[in-house]
């Protein structure tokens, strides 16, 4: 009996040693790839990738979104299932892309699932200011083995997102589309920079960003989530709380919102938006009384926030128009939305569809 127990232990030890030994002595034979090129990724790793990449997957949604915008036919899989609402604006050829999961939020992806989608390269996003990044990238590369992992700084700032868009364009051979998207972004960034610099403090409106289904979670301008409010030169109501940059969303009370009495409320939560005008608690707030509550459009990607990334590019003109409609009379929102959806979401909207999206967000017909 005792002997048998020792045998078990011995077998276990042998198996572990065997595993470690094979790990050390195993040198995988590299496939001879005639057409390969050396590139430097965005965290200065040197990576060898094949020439003429056909299939790409990204390990989290922000870069999947960029790929969908600039090289939809090379995107082999998405990270989560489209909702029916989102599918209304997704062309049929992309609606059935396989779902491979990924590493974001509270979930871990499956390496095998990714490898099974047969990508030429895998795009790994690096959060700005995140730590432990290099070790994550190295872990991915180790587990993806011979499939090159390219690290992209997944910038959460709409003013810097151009850099990663252009980099992705180079990697997947979609420079033209990447330039086009970057130019679109810069055009509206320049416009809002110009206008917001001319605003006097007295002209600045106070905007409350409501998230959560009760509208009582908010993000001060220190976080990336309310960045469009600052960008267009409005005051974020929550800034008086003096929360640092670390907190991305904070819980506030309705009394606090009443004391701020914002001119405009922007929300990302349809449930809150549906009830806000009939809620006696909110009835005393200036923005509600003046019908100045706006819901960010959500499909196929959200315009205002979550994720913070290239999907917010179309959110820049929208935010500018809903907060300062008189200053941005020269932006034709229907035309802008149609152009953006057609070029980057590969979906041609009719005038009526574009209007439906904009009026659904709370905009007045006269301000489109």
């Amino acid at each position, binding site marked *: 009996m005792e002997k048998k127990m020792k045998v*078990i232990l011995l077998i276990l030890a042998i198996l572990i040693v065997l595993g*470690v030994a094979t790990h050390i002595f195993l040198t995988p034979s590299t496939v001879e790839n005639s057409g390969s090129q050396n590139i430097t990724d965005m965290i200065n790793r040197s990576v060898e990738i094949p020439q003429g990449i056909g299939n790409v997957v990204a390990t989290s949604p922000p870069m999947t979104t960029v790929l969908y915008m600039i090289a939809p036919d090379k995107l082999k899989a998405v990270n989560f299932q489209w909702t029916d609402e989102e599918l209304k604006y997704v062309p049929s050829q992309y609606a059935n892309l396989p779902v491979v999961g990924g590493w974001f939020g509270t979930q*871990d*992806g499956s390496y*095998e699932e990714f490898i099974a989608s047969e990508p030429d390269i895998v795009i790994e996003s690096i959060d700005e200011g995140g730590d432990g990044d290099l*070790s994550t990238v190295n872990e991915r590369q180790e*587990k993806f083995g011979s499939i090159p992992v390219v690290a992209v700084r997944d910038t959460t700032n709409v003013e810097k997102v151009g850099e990663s868009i252009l980099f992705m364009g180079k990697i997947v051979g979609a420079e033209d589309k990447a330039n086009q998207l970057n130019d679109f972004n810069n055009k509206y960034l320049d416009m809002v920079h110009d206008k917001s610099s001319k605003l006097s403090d007295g002209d600045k409106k106070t905007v409350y960003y409501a998230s959560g289904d009760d509208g009582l979670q908010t993000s001060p301008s220190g976080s990336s989530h309310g960045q469009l409010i600052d960008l267009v030169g409005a005051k974020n109501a929550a800034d008086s709380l003096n929360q640092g940059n670390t907190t991305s969303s904070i819980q506030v009370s309705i009394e606090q919102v009443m004391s701020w009495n914002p001119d405009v409320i922007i929300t990302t939560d349809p449930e809150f938006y549906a009830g806000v005008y009939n809620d006696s608690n909110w009835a005393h707030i200036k923005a509600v009384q003046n019908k100045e509550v706006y819901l960010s459009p959500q499909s196929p990607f959200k315009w205002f926030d979550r994720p913070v990334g290239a999907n917010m590019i179309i959110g820049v003109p929208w935010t500018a128009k809903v907060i300062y409609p008189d200053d941005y009379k020269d932006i034709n929102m229907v035309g802008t939305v149609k152009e953006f959806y057609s070029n980057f979401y590969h979906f041609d909207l009719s005038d009526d569809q574009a209007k439906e999206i904009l009026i659904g967000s709370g905009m007045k017909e006269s301000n489109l």
Partner: protein
Amino acid sequence: MDKESKEIISIVLLIFLPIILFFASFLLGRYPVSPIDVINTILCPIFPQLEVSPTITTIVYEIRLPRIIAAIVVGAALSMAGAAFQSIFKNPLVSPDLLGVSNGAGFGAALAILISGAGVVTQIFAFVFGIISVSITYLISRAYKAGGILILVLSGVAISAFFNSLISAIKFIADPDDKLPEIVYWLMGSLASVNLDKLIMILIPIIIGTIILMALRWHMNLLAMGDEEAQSLGLNPTRVRLLIIAGCTLLTSAAVSISGIIGWVGLVIPHMTRMIVGPDNRVLIPASLSLGASFLLLVDNISRALISIEIPIGILTAIIGVPIFLYLLKKGYSEWS
């Protein structure tokens, strides 16, 4: 069938079950790999003339092998520690985190994720804080002269609660978009990010802990008779108990440091084992090792292969374990007395 031959069959089963599962697990995963390819890949280092594709080599050696070993090690460690604790505390409802090790390790991991986020730091912090929390528990119990098991258990409950509050405090201040999900995910338990380097780091505490429990399993039988009885047989119960607690803590801390908090295994696998082989610790401890390793390996295979994303293993251990446990319970539970 008489009792003796039943026992022999059980023991043979317990020896071969983890070995068969070990090899079978290589065949499971989200990427379709044929059994022939798997066998070739495993034999390739021995017979270099075999043709294997680099993709399949990666899948077998970098993705499946570390997880399979991790599941075996973690399952074995938690079950052995659970069996030993149940025996020295003479209480069937005891699990390895009785003295605060899991919450201590959880706090260490949450702290590391908050300040650094690197996997290695998280692992080291979890391991060290697991040991620190049990040490605090033990020192407190020694501070009361009329000590004994009850005081030890009570201070374990207190220290557990204390570290649990500290975890909540860290969750409260962590960034909800980035750090918080990571902490929550770690606390749910997962073997998804295990690699060979992490396994090598815990090899020594696991081996030391295993040796301690294996060597002291006769003493556990004596301790189970009561302290006076053990003393009259020339045993120092306090010292033996301390050694066993140290061994269990090494095992549990090391396991938790790579897997996060996986509940249920350390509480219930020793029970299942007892139903199969009886309460004698000389057999129970190694049998728990085998059954725990097999069970967690089985569950982790489901966690990584069932759907396209990882199912946190802490969720599955109970969902799969409860029916098995209830089935065994129905078959009769006269062994625990």
